C-alpha cells in the first residue's frame, strides 16, 4: 500500500459538483452509440434510447437518470485482480492502493543500432516484449501490437490470411509473462475471437479466464460522448464491437475518456473532467447491465490540443491537471484508475523525454493512480525507443520508492541503536550496524548502472557516456542474457493455436513455417 498522496486537486464539494454535472449532461444531452447489443443493454438498464439517426449508421442517443447511474456504480466492483500469464510474475491488484506501471507502443521505432527512426516490424515486438519481461518495474505489457508490426499489419498476405489478430496477441505472450493490457484494433470477428481464445489459453480455459483474467482491454470514445462500432456489415470493427466481444468473454475493461481539451472537450479542465466522467458513467451503465459486477477501471486517454500544431498533448500541464481530476473522481466513486498519458511530447530520447516521463509518473503515483501506462513511448505514441524503456524503468523505480512514503514501523526509529552508537565527533556511524545491513535494501532506493553517480574524473575516464548511451548498452546486455520464464507447454499451446489459424486460412508448408519463424527470438 502506497502512502504518499496528493490532496486537494478537487475538494469533496467540487467532486460532488462534477458528479452532478456529469449526470445532468447524460440526462439532458445523453450518449451516442450504434452497437445493437450495447443499445439493448442501455434499454435493459432503464435508459431512454432515441430514434436512429442518419450517420453514423445505426447510432442512437441514449439518455440516463441519476438512479440508473447510481445503480451501475453500486454494481461495479471497487477492486479486482489482473493475473500474469505465467507463474511467478506479479499480480495486479486494481483498487488496492498499490501503483503499477506498463508500457506503450508506437508506429515507428528508433533503431538501437543505427540510431535512425524506422517502421517497427514483428521482430521488434519480440524484442520489446523480452525487454518488458526483463525490466523489474514494469508490471504489465501493453505491446500495442498493431503498431509494432508493420510487416504484419500492412502486408497484404497477412491481412489476407486474417492473422493479424492472432499474431498481435500471441507474440507478446510468447516473450513476456506479465499481465496484459491491450487495445484490440481487430478488423474482423475472427481476429477478435483469435485474441480472446489466446487469452483463454493463458488462463487455462475460457471459464478460468472469467475467474482469473490475464488480460484487460482498453476502450476509447469518439469524444464527446460517442461510442461507435462498425457502421456497415463487412466494415472493420470499432470500439463498441471490441467492447461487446470482450465483455461477453469476461474481459475486464479500462474505460478511457478521450476528450482533448479545447478540441473534443471544453477548453476548461473542469468541463473536460465532467465530460470524461460522463463518458465513463455511460459505458459503465451498459457494462453493468450486461454483466452485473463486471470489473472496470476508470481509464484516461485525454489530452490537450496544441494550439499551434493541432496535435494532441498528453502531458502538457493542463492535461496533467485533467488526468489528476479524472483520477480524483475514480477515488470519489471508489473505483480503480488507470492513466494512459499515451506518450510524451518529446520525439526522441533526450532531456525532455526524461523530464516529461518523470513528471507524469510522479504525479500519477502521488495521485494514487493504480496503473500508469506509457513507458517507452515518444512523440505522442508515434515513436518508440528501447532506451526509453530502460530509463523509464529507472525513473519508475525511484517513484515507487518515494510514494511508499516514510516507514514508521517499530524498527524505523531505532532509539536504542542511536543511543548506543553515540556521537559523530567521536567517530560513531551506522554503516556497520546490523540494522543498516538488514534494512538498507528496503529503506533505500537501489539505483541500477543507468544512473550516473560517478565523479567528473571517473565519468570522463569512462568515456563521458550519456544516460542514453548507458541505456543502449544495458538494453543490449539484458537482451543477451534475459530469458523470459514462459512455461514450455504454454508456448506450445500458443504456437499450436497460431498454426491452426494458419491452416484455417489455407496457409501450409514453407509459408506457414516462415510466418511461425517470426514469432521466435533470434538474438
Amino acid at each position, binding site marked *: 500500500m502506497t502512502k504518499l498522496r496528493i490532496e486537494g486537486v478537487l475538494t469533496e464539494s467540487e467532486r460532488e459538483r462534477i458528479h452532478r454535472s456529469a449526470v445532468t449532461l447524460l440526462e439532458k444531452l445523453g450518449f451516442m452509440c450504434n452497437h445493437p447489443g450495447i443499445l439493448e443493454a442501455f434499454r435493459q438498464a432503464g435508459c431512454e434510447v432515441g430514434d436512429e439517426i442518419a*450517420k*453514423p449508421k445505426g447510432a442512437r442517443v441514449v439518455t440516463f437518470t441519476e438512479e440508473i447511474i447510481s445503480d451501475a456504480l453500486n454494481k461495479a466492483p471497487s477492486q479486482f485482480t489482473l493475473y500474469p500469464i505465467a507463474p511467478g510474475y506479479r499480480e495486479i491488484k486494481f483498487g488496492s492502493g498499490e501503483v503499477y506501471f506498463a508500457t506503450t507502443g508506437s508506429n515507428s521505432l528508433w533503431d538501437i543500432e543505427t540510431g535512425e527512426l524506422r517502421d517497427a516490424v514483428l521482430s521488434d515486438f519480440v524484442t520489446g516484449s523480452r525487454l518488458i519481461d526483463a525490466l523489474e518495474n514494469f508490471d504489465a505489457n501493453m505491446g500495442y501490437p498493431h503498431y509494432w508490426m508493420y510487416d504484419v499489419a500492412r502486408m497484404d498476405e497477412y491481412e489476407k490470411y486474417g492473422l493479424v489478430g492472432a499474431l498481435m496477441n500471441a507474440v507478446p505472450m510468447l516473450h513476456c509473462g506479465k499481465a496484459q493490457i491491450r487495445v484490440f484494433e481487430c478488423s474482423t470477428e475472427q481476429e477478435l475471437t483469435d485474441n480472446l481464445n489466446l487469452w483463454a489459453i493463458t488462463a487455462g480455459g475460457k471459464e478460468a479466464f472469467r475467474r482469473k483474467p490475464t488480460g484487460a482491454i482498453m476502450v476509447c470514445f469518439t469524444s464527446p460522448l460517442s461510442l461507435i462500432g462498425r*457502421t456497415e456489415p463487412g466494415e*472493420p470493427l*470499432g470500439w463498441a464491437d471490441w467492447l461487446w466481444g470482450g465483455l461477453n468473454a469476461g474481459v475486464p475493461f479500462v474505460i478511457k475518456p478521450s476528450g482533448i481539451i479545447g478540441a473534443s472537450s471544453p477548453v476548461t479542465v473542469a468541463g473536460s473532467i465532467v465530460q470524461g466522467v460522463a463518458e465513463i458513467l455511460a459505458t459503465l451503465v451498459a457494462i453493468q447491465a450486461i454483466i452485473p459486477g463486471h470489473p472496470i477501471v476508470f481509464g484516461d486517454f485525454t489530452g490537450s*490540443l496544441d494550439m499551434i*500544431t*493541432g496535435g494532441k498533448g498528453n502531458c502538457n500541464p493542463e492535461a496533467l491537471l485533467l488526468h489528476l481530476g479524472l483520477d480524483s473522481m475514480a477515488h470519489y466513486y471508489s473505483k480503480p484508475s488507470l492513466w494512459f498519458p499515451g506518450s510524451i511530447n518529446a520525439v526522441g530520447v533526450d532531456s525532455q523525454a526524461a523530464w516529461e516521463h518523470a513528471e507524469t509518473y510522479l504525479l500519477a503515483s502521488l495521485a494514487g493512480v493504480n496503473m500508469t501506462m506509457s513507458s517507452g513511448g515518444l512523440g505522442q505514441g508515434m515513436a518508440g525507443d528501447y532506451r526509453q524503456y530502460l530509463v523509464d524503468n529507472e525513473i519508475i523505480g525511484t517513484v515507487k520508492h518515494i510514494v511508499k512514503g516514510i516507514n514508521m514501523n517499530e524498527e524505523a526509529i531505532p532509539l536504542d541503536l542511536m543511543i548506543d552508537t553515540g556521537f559523530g565527533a567521536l567517530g560513531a556511524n551506522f554503516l556497520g550496524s546490523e540494522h543498516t545491513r538488514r534494512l538498507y535494501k528496503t529503506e533505500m532506493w537501489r539505483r541500477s548502472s543507468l544512473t550516473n553517480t560517478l565523479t567528473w574524473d571517473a565519468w570522463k575516464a569512462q568515456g563521458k557516456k550519456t544516460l542514453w548511451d548507458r541505456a543502449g548498452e544495458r538494453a543490449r546486455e539484458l537482451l543477451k542474457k534475459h530469458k523470459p520464464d514462459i512455461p514450455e507447454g504454454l508456448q506450445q499451446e500458443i504456437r499450436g493455436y497460431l498454426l491452426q489459424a494458419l491452416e484455417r486460412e489455407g496457409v501450409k508448408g514453407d509459408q506457414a513455417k516462415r510466418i511461425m519463424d517470426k514469432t521466435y527470438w533470434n538474438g
Partner: protein
Amino acid sequence: MEEILKQLQDSMYEGNRVESERLAREALSSGIEPLKVIEKGMKPGLTRVGDAFETGALFLPELVGAGDAALAVGNIIDEALGERKETIPYKGTFAIGSVKGDIHTIGKGIVATMMRVNGFKVIDLGVDVSPEEFLEVADKVEAIGLSGLLSLSTKSMEETIKKVSPKYPDVLIIIGGAAVDPALAKAFGVLYGADAASAPRIVEENIKQRRQ
C-alpha cells in the same frame, strides 16, 4: 470604399465571421467589384492571419475563426459573381474527409481551415466518407486529403486511392493523421502531410509542379 475593405481585412484577422459577412455585403452594395472584395479585403486579411500564426501571435482558435469567415465571404462573393465568367482566384480546390470507418473530425477540420486560410477553396466532405463519395468530387478538385486516426482507416484510404487515382490520375492525394506515416504514403504512391500546418505548402507546391 477602401475603408470598408480595410475593415474587412481587420475582421478577417479577428476571425469575426458575422462582421466579415456584413462588411462583404456592404462592400458589394457600395459598388465594389466582387473580386476586388477578395483581392483587397479577404486575401490580405488572411495573409495577415497566416503570418501571425507563423510567428506565434495567433493560435488555432483564431485561425479557425478566420477560416470560417473566409468560407462565409467566399460564398457571398460566389453568389455575387452569379453567372459571370469570373471566379475567385483560389490556389486550387481541395476536398477533404475522414475516410470510411473513421469518424474523427478535429484533425480533418484543422487541415480544412489551414487550406482555406492559405487561399484554397475547400470542399469538406465530413467524416466516414466512402471511396465513392471522394470519387464523386474528384472531377471538381486539384487535390484530395484523406484523414484517418485509427490504424484500421488505412484500409479505407487504400480503397479510396485505388478508386480515385486510376480515373483521375492528375488529382493529387495527400494522407495524414495518426494512422499514417511517410512509408505508408510512399507505398500508396501519394503525398504525406505530417501536420496540418504543412498541408497547404505541400499541396500548393505539388499543384504547381503538375501544372508546369
